[in-house]
């Protein structure tokens, strides 16, 4: 259940709006208060609140209209009838509140089990407080300032989406909401109405960024929130790898996280988007992610989902022009009380396009993981290839795994392969490892890390290490 945050909110009447200036001198803990109390006072979402969000952010009229239009769509769309059980009271949620960013919230307010996990993961002090939402931002200005400057010199824009809207309105106007229209689904509509924060990246033609851009590099970042909106534009021949999230549990006092991520990869461009998220058990994590890849472009999603009460997330690649490629590597780990409904979508809209999906899920202690995937080949998209592999590992009889692959092909000349496997951690495998001196827990943990090895080796080093440690923690005490 969602933690009641009203107590928290009442501690401090001032709220959460960063001072606006671009001088780099802002202290993120200086909050101005003007109209914020209005937001504090009301939960729920309606036209008045949406208009107020837009007004508070000093947005241009088109964005306000976009939000209001999206709200109508949100209100008109029914809840999805597939996937997981969603029990959300939309009028019982604060929108444009940054609940993890609340002034007055202290380290003492963070639940012990979260602190304990941070401790075991060896997360540095500053980062812990950021992750727990005690601090508005990871203290990155000093460390990453020169990095920003370097990127800036190459014409790369890397900022939060609110700032981008103020500073680069032309880019937002051109791309925002074009890859994922508000009408796409109920939660994309909700995000479109109330979005806040998220990353904006523009990489100019031919610029290749040879290190992963990470969300916490952004010195002007707004705190990661419930309704982030991320937009990445990779221009012709450019390359970027963006990494978001962290293997430490994201702790928020609200129960709904609904993000939208839009990516455009132009001719000969490459983009890899890596997400590792580990949500607290009360969270509904309902995310829409989609990329459009143009001629000979490559889009890769690497997506790791842990925790949450329900995650519904199916990163998509639309291959719009010949030679485009899409790759999606996803992993889900579900434990007691958790349902991971994750998967991938690939849509071949042009000839000679290729896609590959590798999906792995692990279910334990009564957790449930589902793979839901779509492979679509449109009429005229000849000579396409798609390869889908999904493997599920079930650790005990109480846990569950399902596979829902959808294949829609309107063209003859295509090659589509789908392989699926479900395995239980075998008594034989456990016995084999135990006969070599490993304890049952060590043995299970080793089998699981072997199972996810294909994903781990795609992660940047520090994430791979954290992910492995996290899996070990998840496995502790899960057997015997």
């Amino acid at each position, binding site marked *: 259940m969602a933690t009641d945050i009203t107590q928290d909110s009442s501690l401090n009447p001032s709220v959460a709006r960063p001072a606006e200036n671009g001088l780099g001198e802002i202290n993120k803990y200086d909050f101005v208060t003007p109209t914020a109390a209005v937001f504090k006072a009301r939960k729920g979402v309606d036209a008045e609140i949406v208009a107020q969000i837009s007004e508070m952010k000093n947005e241009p009229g088109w964005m306000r209209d976009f939000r209001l239009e999206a709200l109508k769509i949100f209100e008109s769309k029914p809840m999805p009838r597939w996937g997981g059980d969603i029990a959300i009271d939309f009028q019982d949620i604060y929108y444009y509140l940054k609940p993890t960013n609340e002034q007055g919230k202290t380290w003492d307010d963070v639940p012990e089990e979260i602190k304990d996990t941070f401790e075991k993961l060896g997360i540095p002090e500053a980062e812990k407080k950021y992750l727990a939402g005690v601090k508005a931002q990871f203290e990155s200005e000093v460390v990453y300032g020169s990095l920003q400057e370097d990127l800036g010199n190459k014409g790369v824009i890397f900022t939060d989406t609110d700032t981008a809207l103020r500073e680069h309105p032309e880019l937002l106007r051109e791309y925002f909401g074009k890859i994922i229209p508000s009408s796409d689904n109920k939660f994309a509509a909700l995000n479109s109405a109330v979005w806040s924060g998220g990353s904006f990246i523009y990489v100019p033609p031919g610029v290749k960024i040879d290190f992963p851009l990470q969300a916490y590099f952004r010195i002007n970042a707004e705190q990661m929130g419930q309704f982030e909106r991320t937009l990445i534009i990779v221009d012709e021949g450019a390359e970027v790898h963006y990494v978001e999230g962290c293997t430490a549990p994201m702790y928020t006092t609200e129960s709904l996280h609904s993000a939208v991520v839009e990516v455009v990869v132009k001719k000969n461009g490459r983009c890899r988007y890596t997400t590792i998220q580990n949500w607290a058990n009360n969270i509904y994590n309902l995310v829409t992610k989609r990329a459009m890849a143009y001629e000979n472009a490559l889009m890769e999603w690497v997506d790791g989902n842990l925790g949450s009460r329900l995650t519904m997330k199916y990163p998509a690649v639309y291959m719009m022009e010949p030679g485009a490629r899409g790759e999606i590597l996803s992993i889900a780990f579900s434990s007691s009380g958790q349902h991971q409904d994750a998967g991938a979508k690939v849509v071949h809209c042009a000839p000679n396009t290729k896609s590959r999906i590798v999906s792995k899920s692990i279910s334990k202690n009564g957790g449930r993981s589902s793979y839901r995937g779509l492979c679509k080949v449109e009429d005229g998209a000849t000579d396409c290839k798609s390869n889908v592999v999904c493997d599920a590992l079930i650790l005990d009889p109480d846990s569950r795994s399902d596979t829902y692959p959808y294949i829609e092909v309107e063209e003859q000349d295509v090659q589509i392969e789908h392989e699926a496997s479900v395995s239980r951690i*075998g*008594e*034989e*495998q456990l*016995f*084999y*490892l*135990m*006969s*070599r*001196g*490993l*304890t*049952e*827990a*060590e043995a299970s943990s*080793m*089998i699981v*890390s*072997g*199972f*996810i*090895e*294909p994903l781990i080796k795609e992660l940047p080093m520090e994430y791979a290490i954290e992910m492995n440690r996290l899996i070990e923690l998840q496995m502790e005490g899960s057997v015997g």
Partner: protein
Amino acid sequence: MSDILKITDLHVAVEGKAILRGVNLTIRRGETHALMGPNGSGKSTLGNAVMGHPGYEVTGGKMELSGADVLAMDATERSRAGIFMAFQRPMAIPGVKMAEFLRHATTNVRNPDRKEGEELIPMRQFRKELMEKMEQLRMDPEFARRYVNDGFSGGEMKRAEILQMAMLRPSFAILDETDSGLDVDAVKLASQSIAQIGREAGGGKEMGILIITHHDKLLDHNRPDFTHVMLGGKIVETGGVELAHELYTEGYDRIRSAYPDAAAAEQEMAEEVAAS
């Protein structure tokens, strides 16, 4: 240290069906025992029961390691107490590299009291030793980076099992048809390696070895002090190396007619398998 593995009147059932029907066997360190017998007579069952496979239910009898109750230990504890089994068909663990697996295993077996999360043996020391052993077994160094038994040929699996034995240095080792699926040269190498590991094992004190086999080639360099014949879930006859040669060349007809009760039990077990 553990010097005697003593099995007394051991009864074992698998999925409710009686397989071992009163096995007696005593192995001292430094001794080599050969265990022969027709298929389905219970040889692998004995190995798995000694190693502590949870699917093999001990329904009666005793098993002691220098006085300590082996039946009270799980497979982890038995391994750490110095018991090893080279499996006939070892399990694949996809995604787990041989070196990583062996580093955990070696650390645990050498420091039986290690708690989870405690330091592993230092990487340099471990790699050096691993590379030496692999060279002795004429294994490509690349082998250490492959996933445990994943896509291994029959011969590679057997060699990997011997490598593990070399690293873990057990006091007592059971080799379950380690010669099957190997060509003549590979059997010779395996036979020599086992003998060498036996001499080096456990700080100079030799290993007690139980070799389960249908042939006599593995015994060339591991001359058995005792050869046991299993039939119908019992050890019915024990002799020297000459018995191994006899069984290999002559088969089990003499044994079956000499031990009609065991032969009847063998018949009964075969029918149960056929019926299930």
